[in-house]
Each structure stands twice: as structure tokens, then as C-alpha cells.
């Protein structure tokens, strides 16, 4: 199939506004009469609120309204459960006045024992974050999932070897550069509330605010502003309900902007996990049984993570006997949210590291053991029926081939290292023998299993009288999806991309869409755009059937023309004008929720250089292979894959929340270190494209899978380089140094 618009590397349509500084993010907006809102946040991770006194604060200059948990449900009432939890909110004329008033609010706290370690949180005697939360004989458990397949004991009985390991992943922030901001404007005369906000899910914000403020949805209009990075962190309501409440009390617009410290302390970062895996395997490397116990640290108000984690811990592998128990656990930390593939980077770090341990123990090449176990067509997938194709194997092979894995040579990397040219060794050949000895190089592979989900998707497409096309969706554009929608519409009508305009409408002016998460927007909303275009084309055909002397179903719209057998072809622009006048308007629409999940696989090969003296790891090269279905815009897809792997790189080597007694020690970009321009390797992207699934032109969501395999690929490469297995990420120089020292002394 030859395409004219999809499959092309077209620059993002929003890029010119971004490079000229014209994009208006939420914090850039100002309304007449606008007040500033500030939250008073708890300094304590766990404390009873004995009393709150706002008398002094409410007499401070500029103060217009103060809310507390006594009179507004989105603020803490009897207890604070994490450092940074909002206790009171102030609206004042200037930000400085609001800050000063917030500081003048007197809160009497009664300190409570703090629960920060997810293992200790479940044990007898642990303090309870929420009264009465006890399940399965474990304390602080808010959600549990069990997955069973076959008979795990019988499986272990047939195993030649059994491996037991515990893996640990950290809390990390999504790290987007735009702190969340909201402006709410309640009009007391009309009873209408408008909220401009940095969110991934404007319809979710609408329903949540309507519920909290007890307002009908039709009175709440949410305008999703351009999002300066979300990655899962802006998927739920954040400041919106309290901002709206302050505006309702003041009858004036109120603006609230989070500080970077607020972001770290009190948004929804990605929680940590402790994962115990017991895996039985035959001598030839075939997996026969997996028993896993997974503890997801979901913070003070939780978030169901156990379910997703439990279904993903087997990775992209065929394991006939499975017994997984997964728990979401309350601790005195912020509520855990998603960061690029909810729980998948956690559990893949565990299974992909353990598979590497098994490969080395059995003397099997790490690539080979994956190929022997990878799921293929017809294999069962937990929660998703059976595999419709064998793409995971293809993706693993693509990564290995691109990386030149075969030159590595067998289970031991020694031959790879001795054969490696200077180029592959990252230029080490120019250094002296002492330095060469100090640096070790290694290579590692890991794969990933993920699904993209269409959810509720919809679009409206209007064919204008001059033959241009306007696409309206309610799906927040995070990753360039608007540009891809323009390409889809252009392809559908056979017109140039420049003739298509794409608009993200607000919740009043666009049809409902689920949030922009779960790699779903291009997959689901893109398909809705395609179907809406087809709907509009049928309407045009019906409108023109009489004058073209043909039945509507014989009329074709393509390559800029409307054609019917025996009739003079009409240029698209002329046809559009006539069709609109005959019919009143040509407005195609589509809404869907029935698209099945699409499985998207990824595999990565990392090449690293490790400093044996300091434990410093440098990733030299990262080959990222991924099943993308069909790349509507290969440049955007590459950008998603490179950016996704960049998150994986930070997860592997440097990012982690550090707590002391429930207090976060590093709520800033200096101490929570994200990879900089100097830390990134050469990315090489290998896209596997087979148009097999139900997205537009066979496209799949691509944003989340690339983050999943990076950390285990790097950890496995580190083992290959220095023979030390690190079971906890991030593998900081300190952590690796200690592990290397321990290995030497053993």
C-alpha cells in the first residue's frame, strides 16, 4: 500500500509555537482580578491534626479566603499521612500575601509513628496509615491480586534448577519540567466554573471536580492547556478541586502553581516495589514455574497497582505454572501514580534480571534463553486471552541483530570483549593500559511486554466548504498525536496535510475522551479520527450522489478528487463546498470503546563501560527495538522511543527518592538526579512494523514500552562487564562499588 500522508516524517504542527515561545502553558495565563492560591502543606509524614487556627492568617493583608479540611473534603481532616499533604488553602491578592498567610496558619500536630519501608509496613505491629487496613494477615494492604495458572508446585517438582531472588525498585518522579498549574474561574451569576489546567485527562478532571464540588458536569468546563510533560504524573486531579473551591468562595479567578518541591513531595510519583521471585527451570533453560510475591509501595492513599504488576511479572515469556501474589501497600509517602507503563518497569527489572541470572548459571547465552521462552502465537497471555502473533520474538531478534549480539560469542562475554574493536569499546584503545584495565565493558539484553488500550475514544471531523478539514478531539496532545491525526485525516481524504487543522477542544466543545495515558491516544483516538473521516466521506458521497448520477457507494474520494463511474471527477474543494450546501454541513463523527488491547513488545541491548575503581557506569550505546505496528510519523515515534529509554536510563542509574523517617531528603533536581545531555548514550532505534492490530493503519501506542526494558538491559550489561549482580536500582556508583567490594571479599 502506498501512502501519501501517513508514514511520513512531518515536523510536529505545534513545534513553531514552541520554538518561538508562543505556547501558553497554564502558568503563563493571567485573568483580570485573578487571585493567588497557596496550600499549607504538612511538614510531618504522619500526624494527627489536633487543631487548626486560621484567625491570625485570615486577618493578614490581601487574604480573601481560607479553606481547611473542616470545610473542604480535598484537604486533610483528622490526620496527615505524608509529608507535603495539603492541610489548608489560602487565596490572596498576591502570591507573597498568600504565602505569608499560609505560614501564619497555626496547626497543632500530634506526631505518629511513621511507616516508610514497604516490607515493614505489612508486618505485625506496624503503625496503620489508615485505621483498620488489614488483609490476608498483612497490615496496610489496600489491594491484592492473585494470579494462578497450572500447578506451581508440580512445576517446581519437574524443574532441574530453582532460582530465588529479591529485587527492589525505587520511588521516582516523572520529572516533567512543567510543574502542574491550574486556574479556576467560578462565575457566581451563571453558576459556571471554568478551569484551565495542565492535565493529561481533562474529562477525568471534570468528573472529579463535579463530584467534589457537588456540581453538574454541564456547569464545569475544563480547558486542558498544553502539557509540559506528563508521563503519567498529570493523569489524575491535582490542584483543580481546591483551586475551584477557592474561586467559588471568592467569586474571582484563582491561580495555583506548584513549586518543584511541591511536585516531588505531593504529586503522584511512581512508587517503589519489592519483588521476590522463585523460578524453576529445565537444564535447557525452559521456564517451568514462577512463584512471585510482589509488594507495591503505593503511598498514603494508594492506587491499585497490584493487579497490573501481577499480570506483567512473567514478562514476554511462556511459563506454564504460575502463582503470583501481589499487594498494594500503604506507607507514609505521597500517593503513588504511574510513570510510563504502570508497574511494568518494576516487574520487568525483576524477571529480566533473574532470567539473566539463570542464563549465566546454566551457561546459556542470554539472548538464546529469551528466544527459547518467548511467547508466540497461541500462547496464553495473563488477562488478555492468547497471543495473536509472534512479534515479541521478532522484536528481540531485531534488537540483537542491530546490536551485533552474535559477535558477543556465547554465554561468557570474554570473547566479545577480546574481539571488540576500539570503536565498540568506546575509544578505550587510546588510553593507557592502566586505564584500560580499570574500565570494563559489557553488553546486556532485556525485553518487555506491554499492551496499549483504546479506552473511550472519539473524534469529530468537519469538511469545510473550501475543501480543508478540521479535526476536533478531546484528547490532550502529549506526544505529537495532533500531528499524526492530521496525517490520518489527510490520508483518508487524499489531501495535503497542510489542509488539515487539528484542535483539542475543551470539555464543552469536544466529545468525551479518556485521558492521555496507557499509550492509547494514537491507537484509540487515532482510529476514531480515521472512522470519523470515513463517516464524513460517506456523507459527502450521499450529498453528491444525485448530481454525479451514481449511487453513493460507487462514489470514491481519493487523491484530491471525488469520482464516480461515468461522471466528470470533481476537485475535492469544489465537491466539499457543494456537499456542505446540500447537506447543511459535513460533520463526520466516531466514538468507540470496543477496540481490543494491542500488545506492544520492546527489547533493548545496552553496552556499558564500568569503572572498576569507582563503580561509575557509562552507557555507551542503547539499541531500542519495538513493535510499533505502523509508524504514522516515524520521527515522532523515534522521539518517543528515545525519550522513553531516557527515562529507563535514569531509572537504571541515578534516580531515586531518598527518605529519612518519612521525610524526603532530595526534593529537587540537584539531589534527585535525572540524566543530562552528557549521560545519554547513542540511541539506535529499530522499529518493527507489521500492520496487524486495530489502530489506524495498524498503528500502536508507543510511548510506554521503551521505558520498560532499559533498566534490566543496563543491569545485565553491568553484570557482563564486572560479574556483579545488582538486584536494586538505581545502580549508583556507591551501590555498585559496595557490591563489587562485597564480591571481592566473598
Amino acid at each position, binding site marked *: 500500500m502506498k501512502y501519501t500522508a501517513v508514514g511520513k*516524517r512531518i*515536523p*510536529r504542527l*505545534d*513545534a*513553531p*509555537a*514552541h*520554538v*518561538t*515561545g*508562543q*505556547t*501558553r*502553558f497554564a*502558568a*503563563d495565563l*493571567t485573568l483580570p482580578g485573578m487571585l493567588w492560591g497557596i496550600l499549607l502543606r504538612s511538614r510531618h509524614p504522619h500526624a494527627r491534626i489536633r487543631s487548626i487556627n486560621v484567625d491570625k492568617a485570615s486577618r493578614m493583608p490581601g487574604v480573601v479566603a481560607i479553606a481547611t479540611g473542616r470545610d473542604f473534603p480535598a484537604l486533610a481532616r483528622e490526620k496527615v499521612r505524608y509529608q507535603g499533604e495539603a492541610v489548608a488553602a489560602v487565596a490572596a491578592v498576591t502570591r507573597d500575601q498568600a504565602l505569608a498567610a499560609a505560614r501564619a496558619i497555626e496547626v497543632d500536630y500530634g506526631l505518629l509513628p511513621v511507616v516508610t519501608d514497604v516490607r515493614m509496613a505489612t508486618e505485625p505491629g506496624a503503625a496503620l496509615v489508615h485505621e483498620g487496613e488489614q488483609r490476608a494477615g498483612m497490615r496496610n494492604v489496600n489491594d491484592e491480586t492473585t494470579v494462578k495458572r497450572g500447578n506451581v508446585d508440580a512445576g517446581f517438582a519437574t524443574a532441574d534448577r530453582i532460582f530465588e531472588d529479591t529485587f527492589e525498585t525505587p520511588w521516582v518522579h*516523572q*520529572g*516533567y*519540567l*512543567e*510543574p502542574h498549574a491550574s486556574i479556576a474561574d467560578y462565575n457566581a451569576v451563571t453558576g459556571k466554573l471554568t478551569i484551565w489546567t495542565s492535565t493529561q485527562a481533562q474529562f477525568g478532571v471534570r468528573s472529579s471536580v463535579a463530584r467534589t464540588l457537588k456540581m453538574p458536569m454541564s456547569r464545569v468546563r475544563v480547558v486542558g492547556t*498544553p*502539557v*509540559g*510533560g506528563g*508521563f503519567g504524573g498529570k493523569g489524575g486531579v491535582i490542584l483543580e478541586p481546591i483551586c475551584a473551591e477557592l474561586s467559588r468562595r471568592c467569586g474571582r479567578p484563582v491561580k495555583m*502553581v506548584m*513549586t*518543584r518541591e511541591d511536585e516531588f513531595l505531593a504529586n503522584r510519583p511512581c512508587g517503589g516495589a519489592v519483588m521476590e521471585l522463585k523460578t524453576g527451570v529445565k537444564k535447557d533453560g525452559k521456564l517451568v514455574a514462577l512463584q512471585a510475591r510482589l509488594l507495591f509501595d503505593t503511598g498514603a492513599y494508594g492506587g491499585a497497582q497490584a493487579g497490573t504488576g501481577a499480570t506483567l511479572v512473567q514478562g514476554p515469556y511462556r511459563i506454564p505454572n504460575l502463582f503470583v501474589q501481589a499487594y498494594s501497600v500503604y506507607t507514609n509517602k505521597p500517593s503513588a501514580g504511574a510513570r510510563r507503563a504502570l508497574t511494568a518497569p518494576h516487574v520487568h527489572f525483576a524477571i529480566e534480571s533473574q532470567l539473566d541470572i539463570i542464563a549465566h548459571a546454566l551457561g546459556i547465552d542470554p539472548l538464546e534463553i529469551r528466544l527459547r521462552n518467548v511467547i508466540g502465537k497461541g500462547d496464553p497471555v495473563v488477562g488478555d486471552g492468547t497471543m495473536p502473533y509472534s512479534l515479541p520474538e521478532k522484536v528481540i531478534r531485531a534488537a540483537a541483530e542491530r546490536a551485533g549480539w552474535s559477535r558477543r560469542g556465547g554465554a561468557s562475554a570474554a570473547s566479545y570483549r577480546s574481539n571488540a574493536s576500539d*570503536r565498540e569499546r*568506546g*575509544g578505550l584503545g*587510546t*588510553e593507557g593500559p592502566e*586505564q584500560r584495565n580499570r574500565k570494563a565493558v559489557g553488553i546486556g539484553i532485556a525485553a518487555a511486554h506491554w499492551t496499549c488500550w483504546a479506552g473511550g475514544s472519539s473524534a469529530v471531523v468537519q469538511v469545510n466548504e473550501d475543501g480543508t478539514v478540521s479535526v476536533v478531539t478531546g484528547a490532550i496532545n*502529549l*506526544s*505529537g498525536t495532533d500531528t499524526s491525526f492530521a496525517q490520518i485525516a489527510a490520508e483518508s481524504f487524499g489531501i495535503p496535510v497542510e489542509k488539515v487543522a487539528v484542535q483539542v477542544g475543551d470539555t464543552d466543545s469536544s466529545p468525551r475522551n479518556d485521558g492521555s495515558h496507557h499509550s492509547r491516544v494514537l491507537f484509540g483516538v487515532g482510529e476514531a479520527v480515521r472512522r470519523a473521516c470515513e463517516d464524513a466521506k460517506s456523507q459527502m458521497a450521499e450529498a453528491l450522489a444525485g448530481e454525479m448520477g451514481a449511487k453513493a457507494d460507487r462514489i470514491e474520494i481519493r487523491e484530491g478528487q471525488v469520482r464516480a463511474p461515468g461522471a466528470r471527477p470533481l476537485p475535492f474543494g469544489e465537491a466539499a463546498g457543494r456537499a456542505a450546501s446540500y447537506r447543511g454541513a459535513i460533520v463526520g463523527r466516531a466514538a468507540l470503546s470496543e477496540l481490543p488491547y494491542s500488545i506492544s513488545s520492546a527489547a533493548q541491548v545496552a553496552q556499558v563501560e564500568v569503572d572498576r575503581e569507582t563503580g561509575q557506569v557509562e552507557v555507551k550505546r542503547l539499541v531500542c527495538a519495538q513493535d510499533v505496528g505502523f509508524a504514522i510519523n516515524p*520521527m*515522532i515515534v*523515534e*522521539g518517543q522511543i*528515545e*525519550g522513553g*529509554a*531516557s*527515562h529507563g536510563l535514569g531509572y537504571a542509574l541515578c534516580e531515586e527518592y531518598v527518605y529519612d523517617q518519612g521525610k524526603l531528603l532530595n526534593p*529537587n*533536581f*540537584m539531589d534527585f538526579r*535525572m540524566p*543530562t*545531555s*552528557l549521560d*545519554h548514550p*547513542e*540511541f539506535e532505534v529499530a522499529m518493527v512494523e507489521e500492520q496487524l492490530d486495530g489502530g489506524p493503519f495498524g498503528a500502536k501506542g508507543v510511548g510506554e514500552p521503551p521505558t520498560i526494558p532499559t533498566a534490566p538491559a543496563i543491569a545485565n550489561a553491568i553484570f557482563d562487564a564486572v560479574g556483579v549482580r545488582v538486584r536494586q536500582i538505581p545502580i549508583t556508583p556507591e551501590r555498585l562499588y559496595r557490591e563489587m567490594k562485597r564480591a571481592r571479599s566473598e
Partner: protein
Amino acid sequence: MSRDHLLRLRINGETHEIPAHPAERLIDVLRNQAAFTSVKEGCGTGQCGACTVLLDGRPVVSCLVFAGDAVGREITTVEGLAEKDRLHPLQEAFVRHGAVQCGFCTPGMLLAAKALLDENPKPTAEEIKHALTGNLCRCTGYRKIIEAIQSVAGATPLKRTARAARKGASR
């Protein structure tokens, strides 16, 4: 802070008289008083680089600069890069190379790149990476940003330069 003062600031070649206290942060005066909202606040502590502006051609984080210290100096924001509707070659290259995703780091990133190219018109990939260390980007993984800057500098493609540079540099 009292705003009885009128600060005379040169911004993008024009003189502005702005009611602001000299001890206010330059970022606040630019964003709130002068409506240069391309100057983004990502952290407020000089760690992310999103608020980068040029002061007499040198990149500074405007969240750590007193507005009074910018008096008598030439301030450049990204609004000052394009000439009417013609994009600056760096802006053009960022668009063309897919170096822009969410766009929040982009103004600061462009200004850091401009300062580099003004001083060193043909930087190596390694020199570009060093020039961008103060500017965080969470979306792209930097590769397309580096490529975009190189395309303007007319340098050799990333891979060859990167390898050549690495041989010389040991860090």
C-alpha cells in the same frame, strides 16, 4: 516588595520601563511585568535551565538573577530570536529535526544553543553536550536536540563527531 521603582531593561533590542523592585527575580519581572512568558519556571533554583535568558549574550538562569542586575545589559529571550515571521536557523532546525516535544525546555535550550554557536560556530558533539548540561529535557533523550544544533553548525553528523570527540576527551 515596593514597585515604586521604574526599571529600565533592554529586552530583545527594545527599552522597557517596568515598575519593579530591583531585588525581584529577573524571571518574575520578565514573565509577570513584561509578559515574556517564554521564560519558563521549572524549578526556581537554577537547576533545570528552563528560565535561561541571555545577558549580554551569555546564558544565565533568570530565576537566580536580580532584576536590578540586568539593568544596562542586553537581555535576550526566545521572542527575540525570530525576525518577524522568519524563524532563526536554530528554531527552524529544532522544528525540522523533531527536537521539540512538550516544548517547555525549548526556549531555554534554544538560547543555550545560540550562546554556544555565537562563541563557537562549529562545535563538536561533545562541546554541544557540555553546553547543554544546565538545560534539562525530559522528553527527547537529547539526541534530536544535538542533531538540530549540529545541522545549524554545519558540522559532521553526530555519530562520527561523537566518536572522534570521545577519543580525545577522557571524562
